[in-house]
């Protein structure tokens, strides 16, 4: 399992498409920084193909006042969860 990390939102950047195209069947995607905008219910359609493997960083949602709007299908993790995800992965790949 590879952990992909994405810090840009699908509302303004198309890098999420390259990230999704590069993901294997078991890989996970963690949304951080402005990337968490993609975790909103109104934006979640962009990540349909990886349902169940999508994560978002709680601290970054919270600072933006978005925690309540995060889609139920997204697994919200704090920074310790981020570290755990990186432990469980064979490696990480950052997309920006």
């Amino acid at each position, binding site marked *: 399992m590879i952990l992909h990390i994405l810090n840009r939102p699908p509302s303004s950047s198309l890098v999420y498409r390259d990230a999704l195209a590069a993901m294997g069947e078991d890989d996970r995607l963690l949304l951080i920084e*402005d990337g968490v905008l993609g975790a909103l219910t109104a934006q979640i359609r962009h990540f349909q193909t990886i349902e169940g493997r999508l994560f978002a960083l709680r601290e970054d949602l919270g600072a933006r006042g978005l925690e309540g709007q995060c889609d139920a299908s997204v697994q919200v993790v704090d920074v310790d969860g981020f570290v755990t995800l990186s432990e469980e992965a064979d490696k990480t790949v950052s997309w920006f």
Partner: protein
Amino acid sequence: MPTHAPATGDLLVILRHAPHGSSWLREGLDAALVAAAFGQAVTLLFQGDGVLSLVEGQGPGPLGQKGTAATLDMLAMYDIESLFYDQVALAGFGFAPQQLQLPATGVEAGAIAPLIAGHRLVLTF
């Protein structure tokens, strides 16, 4: 309420970036505040990801980064009361106008060109 923007003035600042992810929003707001302090008539347009600057409930970052919610509360003090936002972008994030932390006017795409035409100088951040 959607409306065609009639605003004119000296400076239009267009804010296209979300809070926290970069310093664009803060630096754009700083430019607006300084221009207002210099007596200019300043209008703000929140466009694209920038509309999220207006959302209620923002806080500091995990290292204590200030964010920009507090700066927005200062706009009125500086007599910056001409605030517009891209209503398509706000809806695209699933937010309703009632969820904004301060009163602003929603505009459709067609209202942005007159806004730009109505100001002597336009800065985008």
